[in-house]
């Protein structure tokens, strides 16, 4: 069954006001196009979850879609701060932003518990850290086994919607990813609804020819969106590099609420969809970001008829 949809329809149908939304990706495969569509459709009161809120969450939070942020590290990676997020946390400007913070491993294990239908996940983190003092959801327990180790636990995180980008997927939503995997698999399995966005829609036979590379099976996917360059200015391994100039430029744009709004007007509200964004950025940029090929070796799965 085909689950192929446009980004507009997928977001309209699957992302609702008040939802907990995770657009995951650890520097890699961050689906900016989905974030832009959520802004364009003016969703409100979202709780945004992600290990590493970066520029797309700064854009979304600057645009006013969210009331709360769940995270483990926030910043413009390799550049500096998220100015729109900081304005809201430090000055409640233009509105306060509720936060709930963990460590990286804590966030991973929250998704893990959500994906595996566990009531909590034990981790050897947070000892003598102040983080549990400001986050009552991080608790501790004594192991019921002989060693009686005292250990911290984190609760499951089950987003209403996870949005995950992949290099390729078939029409049923079976998605293959290579390069940095982040915690997309865990977030997708933990979520109630899943949108897979891909650079290329491929035949099911392409997926079946290399099943070890399938990270997300279509059975948990609600919609598949083919959207080339959807991760810009983030990167897609083997397809395009990080556009570092954009990350640097964003540091200036977001310093001031008015210039952030002007950027959103020009690049989000003023465009109908991501295809227009790609065209407006210009072919020269996409050529410049394309890496030289470095093919993987092939493996022989064998045929067992």
């Amino acid at each position, binding site marked *: 069954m085909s689950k192929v949809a446009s980004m507009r329809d997928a977001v309209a149908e699957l992302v609702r006001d008040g939802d907990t939304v995770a657009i995951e990706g650890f520097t890699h495969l961050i689906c900016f196009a989905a974030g832009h569509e959520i802004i364009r459709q003016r969703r409100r009161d979202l709780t945004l979850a992600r290990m590493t809120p970066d520029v797309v969450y700064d854009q979304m939070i600057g645009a006013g879609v969210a009331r709360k942020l769940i995270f483990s590290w926030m910043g413009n990676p390799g550049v500096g701060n998220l100015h729109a997020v900081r304005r809201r946390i430090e000055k409640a400007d233009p509105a306060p932003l509720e936060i709930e913070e963990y460590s990286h491993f804590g966030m991973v294990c929250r998704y*893990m518990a959500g994906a595996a239908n566990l009531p909590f996940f034990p981790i050897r983190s947070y000892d003598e850290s102040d983080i549990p003092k400001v986050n009552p959801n991080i608790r501790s327990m004594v192991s019921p086994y002989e060693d009686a180790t005292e250990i911290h636990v984190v609760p499951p995180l089950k987003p209403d919607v996870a949005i995950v980008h992949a290099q390729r997927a078939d029409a049923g939503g079976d998605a293959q990813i290579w390069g940095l995997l982040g915690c997309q698999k865990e977030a997708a399995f933990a979520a109630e609804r899943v949108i897979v966005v891909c650079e290329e829609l491929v035949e099911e036979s392409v997926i079946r020819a290399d099943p070890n590379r399938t990270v997300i099976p279509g059975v948990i996917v609600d919609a598949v969106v083919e959207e080339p360059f959807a991760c810009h200015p983030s990167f897609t391994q083997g397809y395009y590099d990080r556009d570092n100039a954009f990350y640097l430029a964003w540091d200036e744009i977001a310093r001031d609420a008015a210039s952030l709004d002007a950027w959103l007007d020009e690049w989000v509200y003023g465009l109908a969809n991501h295809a227009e964004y790609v065209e407006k950025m210009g072919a020269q940029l996409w050529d410049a970001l394309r890496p030289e090929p470095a093919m993987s070796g092939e493996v022989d799965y064998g045929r067992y008829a």
Partner: protein
Amino acid sequence: MSGDAGPAADLGYSRSEIMIAASARQLDRVRNCFVGVGLPNIVCNLAQRTVSPDLQLVYESGVFGARPERLPLSIGDPTLVTGATAVTSMFELFAYYLQAGLIDVAFLGAAQIDRYGNINTTVIGDYDHPKVRLPGSGGACEIAIHAKRILVIMRQAQRSFVETLDFRTSPGHSGDPAHDAARGWSGSGPTDVVTDLATYTFDDATGEMTLVTLHPGVGLDEVRANMGWEPRVAEDLGETPAPTAEELRLIREVLDPGRIYTK
């Protein structure tokens, strides 16, 4: 960048460059090193090309044994993936590599550090009404307790070397060695701090940061003026060896030709 790397042009290298070179030498014959954002990136890439060719660069983004062809722009740069020994999920990286005790050395940076090597990367001011909201822990609070050794690399200033942290993100030593020994962590906490002015170790008996070398051209007064407590000074206080010509060549021509980290 916080702080001022300061003029040291007459020495033929900058204070950032000696900080990087001195940090890289800390990795002599180290095997598995967890690399952090920013300066540790260039330090570890320098060490791999000098004192520790077998160094396995481990990135929390899920890369073990990176062989980057360019200086990574972040800890999640695609150049870390191509040619690496292994790319793992983040669960695997944190659970099997870090939490299980495979990491020999890890770098941490800090917005604030205290005399026992406790680190704040969360907030300046009150948590609920922060003056400055910082990035948060990331993996730091777990790296701090699981990596066998922690190296801290950061520029030195009154506002960052503080008597009392505003928030303890990642624990260092407690000041009570008996307590520290009973923690049962796989890591031994911070062992060295390298700044743009000096290098420090931690005293075995007290866990207190101890000044061991001054960089050439730096006096004790300048170190004192840039920290929030009276530092403990080693009896045999020495001088940090200057960067070698080869270290400077690698930093300037290979690792950071755009002078992003070493201006």
